């Protein structure tokens, strides 16, 4: 399995411990690798907002969250 698949599986939460070590070694081998990983991690998180199964805010401004000034 190549590093790229390891990255995706890591974001899916499907890495075995030895695979996690391999990925960490890759991330630490070069700052550019780490930057790439963090960008992809952020993309993964952002695109979670587009999941049709994710809860959507109700239309309209809605009530202020608790504790809001």
């Amino acid at each position: 399995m190549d590093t790229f698949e390891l990255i995706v599986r890591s974001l899916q939460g499907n890495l075995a411990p030895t695979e996690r070590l391999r990925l960490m070694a890759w991330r630490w081998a070069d700052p550019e690798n780490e930057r790439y990983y963090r960008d992809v991690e952020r993309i993964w998180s952002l695109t979670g907002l587009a999941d049709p199964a994710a809860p959507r805010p109700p239309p309209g401004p809605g009530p202020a969250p608790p504790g809001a000034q």
Partner: protein
Amino acid sequence: MATQLRGGTVPTHAHPGDRDLVPALRAGDLAALETLVSRYRPSLVAYATRLLDGSEMADDIVQEVFLRLWTHRVEWSSTSCLRPLLFRITRNLALNEKRRVRVRLRGAARILREETRGSPSPAEETEEGELRSRIDAAIASLPRRRREVFVLARFQNLTFAQIAAVLGISPQTVANQMSAALAHLRRELRPFLVEEPEAPANGRASGGGVF
């Protein structure tokens, strides 16, 4: 088929793996089908919903998937891997449905799009609404095959091998498409990828090593 597939009760027997369910399914065991429905229906509906751009047809499509699985159960190999098979059937049915709807409603859809574009919903005026719109647009701007690969990995948690089986392509092509999809999204969503301050110098120069 008289069996009500939607929202059925979860069978009380232990949770067998998919591989154990295939022989039971082939033997006509309805409990095996119900187990599969409860196990896969939510993710298949989410997948179909995405393929159909949020259409309410997703439920019907998924019901049809299980109906077909049941009707053709004796034709499935006992070594069939059910997860990619179910996603593949869902994809085929959803794309067929999408084609039918597109032909039927092309004119109406265009008018609706124009009206929607002219009056953004209140939710779109909120920050989160705008962000979601940007993300939706970024995903939508991916080429079709690339988008399919990304959606199956991101929202259905399928492995590269499973995606390859669903789409009938090689795992290496899946990896290539996924890499290109992430590169595209990285460009499109660049403003939201907050650059963190550089870590304390470790003496390494940056460069190379990325895809």
